[in-house]
Every structure is written in structure tokens, then in C-alpha cells.
């Protein structure tokens, strides 16, 4: 079936540094999402993105976070600067359009460890 690829699967970074998490969504999908899962907790919505713009973001989407998808390439989540509490698994997801017939397809996640 359709696959969302996330690269890398694990990233270790020092606090204060910048990190970019990459997501290769399903090719014909138009809507993109990031979710965050802290160890032992539920996945929580961060942001969704359509047509080059953030559609909605949660309170977890701090000012240090940004998303973009330049020229149809990777959909990225950038954190600058990183903080210890940013350590989590970040899941990317995509869907082709609106309507109840559409399914959200997730990647396998990138585990971010901030030291």
C-alpha cells in the first residue's frame, strides 16, 4: 500500500542545536501532518499543512518549530533551537484530500533524542 517514509529513524542531537526531520509523503497526497509521541504517552497532533501553509497547529507546536515542503520535496519539521523536552518520536502523516473516505497514512516515526 501507500507508504510514508521518514528519514532518519533515529536522530541524536545536543540541546540548543537545530534539527530537521524529513518526511517523504505518499506521492499524490496534498495534506500533511506531524504528530509527537513522548515515551509512554499518546501521539499528539502538532500541525497540519496544505498548499504551502500551516492550516492548524496545537499548543505543542512551539515558536521554535517550523514546517515546510519546498517544491514538492520532503515535508520537513525543523526545531531550532532544540530543548530536552523535544525528545520524542515524531510521526509524519499524509492524506490525499478532504472527506471521510480519506485515510491518514503514517510513517514509522523518527525518534529524536535531545541530550
Amino acid at each position, binding site marked *: 500500500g501507500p507508504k*510514508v517514509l521518514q528519514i532518519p529513524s533515529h536522530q541524536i542531537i545536543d540541546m540548543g542545536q537545530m534539527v530537521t526531520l524529513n518526511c517523504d509523503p505518499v506521492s499524490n497526497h496534498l*495534506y500533511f501532518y506531524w504528530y509527537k509521541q513522548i515515551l*509512554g504517552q*499518546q501521539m499528539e497532533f502538532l500541525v497540519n499543512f496544505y498548499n504551502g501553509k500551516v492550516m*492548524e497547529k496545537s499548543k505543542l507546536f512551539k515558536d521554535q518549530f517550523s514546517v515546510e515542503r519546498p517544491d514538492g520535496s520532503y515535508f520537513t519539521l525543523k526545531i531550532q533551537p532544540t530543548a530536552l523536552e523535544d525528545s520524542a518520536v515524531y*510521526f509524519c502523516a499524509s492524506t490525499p484530500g*478532504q472527506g471521510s473516505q*480519506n485515510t*491518514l497514512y*503514517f510513517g514509522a516515526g523518527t525518534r529524536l533524542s535531545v541530550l
Partner: protein
Amino acid sequence: GDSVTQTEGLVTLTEGLPVMLNCTYQSTYSPFLFWYVQHLNEAPKLLLKSFTDNKRPEHQGFHATLHKSSSSFHLQKSSAQLSDSALYYCALSYSGGSNAKLTFGKGTKLSVKS
């Protein structure tokens, strides 16, 4: 706010026995309910989604019934298989589509043993 509560932690079953993973929710409006399954080192994948017409969704032997009166969407299967071992997430949203902001439960780990 909205929330989803699932059977906590690990559920261990012997192959062939029935599966029931609980999911209850709190929501402001009438939501769609979902079950996602995540096998080890894989992406979460949609297993089931509630219908607007109260049909019971079924997939891979799993089924779930949305009970609005009890705010529940329990996941059931008559006979567990070894390959069912995975992490199961219950989630809700107010749209079945692209602007669906899913609210997830913490997940239930199912371990099926022979």
C-alpha cells in the same frame, strides 16, 4: 477537551482466544472513531473506522461497534492469531478526512502467545 481512554499497558492472550481491547472517549460533538495498529518498527496503519450509518466496520477479522450511549468503540476479534501481536491505538476526530486532527489514546500492546 476531547480524550480517548484505552485498556492500559499490555494484554497477553493465548492464540485462538477472543480479543477485546477497550476504548472509551469523551468529546464535545459526535466524532468518528478509529483503530490503528502498529507492528514493531512499522508505521501505524488504519485498521478500522466507524461509519456514519452505524454499520459495523470489519477488517482482518477485527470488528468494532460504536456505541454512542456509552461512548465506546471496543475492538474485538473472535480468535487471536500470533500475527495480531502489535500496538493498538484508538483515536477520534470530527472529520474523516484531511483536516482530521486525530486525538489518540495511549495505546494497548497486544501480545499473542502459542
